[in-house]
């Protein structure tokens, strides 16, 4: 599925909820269902800067697609990580670099999250795009 299709689906899912409590409940469910990262990747090097709760993001490149796994010590943050992984994992570096993250505004997350958590979310997106750039460069160098 293309990134835009996934993000549109996410926006639709959140439109089903009228109040913030239901949105949070859904995020918490998503957080609890996030596939956990392999323990060996929960290392300092994979910690995302800018998150007051800790987030570990690991990326693997199969030569064509990037596969992300993540974990956090806070459930709501894990829910957000889940949304990002669902959108960007299994995509090519170029598609990730070309994609928009407006959908996060569309589902009202940025409005309801504290600035520290919004910053954390933006840091996660930035890191995902950094991985995409790094893997794209690596691929173009023929490694």
């Amino acid at each position, binding site marked *: 599925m293309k990134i835009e299709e996934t993000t549109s689906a996410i926006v639709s899912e959140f439109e089903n909820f009228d109040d*913030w*409590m239901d949105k*949070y*409940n859904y995020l*918490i469910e998503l957080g609890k269902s996030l596939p956990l990262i392999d323990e060996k990747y929960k290392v300092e090097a994979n910690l995302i800067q800018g998150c*007051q*709760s*800790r987030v570990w993001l690991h990326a693997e490149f199969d030569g064509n697609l990037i596969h992300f796994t993540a974990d956090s*010590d*806070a*459930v*709501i*943050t894990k829910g957000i990580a889940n949304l990002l992984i669902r959108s960007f994992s299994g995509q090519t570096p170029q598609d990730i670099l070309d994609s928009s993250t407006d959908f996060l505004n569309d589902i009202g997350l940025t409005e*309801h*999250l*504290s600035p*520290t*958590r919004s910053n954390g979310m933006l840091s996660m997106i930035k890191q995902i795009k950094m991985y995409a750039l790094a893997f794209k460069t690596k691929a173009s160098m023929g490694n």
Partner: protein
Amino acid sequence: MDPEKIRVDFPILGRKVHNKPLVYFDNAATTQKPQVVIDALVNYYTGLNSNVHRGVHYLSQQATVAFEEVREKIQHFVNARFSHEIIYTRGCTESINLVAASWGRANIGQGDEILISGMEHHSNIVPWQMLCEEKGAALKVCPLHPDGSLDMQAYADMLGEKTRMVAITHISNTLGTVNPVKEITRMAHEKGITVLIDGAQALSHMKVDVQDIGCDFYAFSAHKVYGPMGIGGLYGREEVLNAMPPYQGGGEMIKNVTFEKTLYNELPFKFEAGTPNVGDVIGFGAAIDYISGIGLDQIGAWEHELLAYATEKLSADPLVRIIGTAPGKASLISFLINGIHPYDAGTIIDHMGIAVRTGTHCTQPLMDSLGISGTIRASFAFYNTKQEIDRLMEAIDKVKEFFL
């Protein structure tokens, strides 16, 4: 004291957050401002705005008088001997940095030791670390008992021949522990060691008497005492301040300048480079008048009642764990809800209209030593009520619904 009568003095307490009446329990981070403080700021900029000390014109003279009157107010508020023992700074952090930079530069050398405690916030850790790095000195950390009180035996043992400075907080912003600062100072002075007390959390809760404590320095911020942000002070004993070199150059700290040599001004101006924050100083003065009018004894008594009520309620919940249980605590409680991450809990509590602080509270080393990633902190002021604590308990039930 009737908090309902007090609350009308604070316009922000009437507002709603997430469509619910605001409950403000983040007073250790900053306190709300009474209308008289807001009015003082408006009145200053409306009718008095002028640069101080150097103008001969009417406004400048009036502003200078008002500015210096507040210095005397602060002097009496903390019972300093002289008004020139009060240095205006941007706040507690800058006060500590001033001492570390000025006193530290002149008095710390290779192999010397600076002693802090395990409950310090970053502002009373990092300036000393920077000084230690620059001078090749060592930062020593006095441990705590499990209840969050300072291990005074360890403290006594750590006061060594190389110790030059003891820098310890009066009240822990994370644990609520009130440290025996008079005893801490006495023990250090017996060995000729200089003492700085970080009073960021203390000034709004209790009567502070720097002469009784006997410390060499006492640092504080206005915004934690119902005054404006960006202004605060450093009390320093006259003899100690006089022996210190200037901290920054320029403005009022100068007596005479030639290209060859500058003569520095006397206290307190020696440490007040540049144009000062006159408006906020005047706002600080209004805050001191306001809380002096209510009385710190009354304030302390009501806050103690709030703390006892909240402690009783939170202790009755088997899923709540209180972090910091030292006897005689100040009016704040750090807690965790059955392993739920503080950010998760704080997000839901916020949506219930309640402002609490979550995270490490700028005491990351303390959190590391406790083996936790943070806490939820409810810190009370005299305008808070028991009904608001009941609302916090409802919010905690809601958090449990969400996450357990």
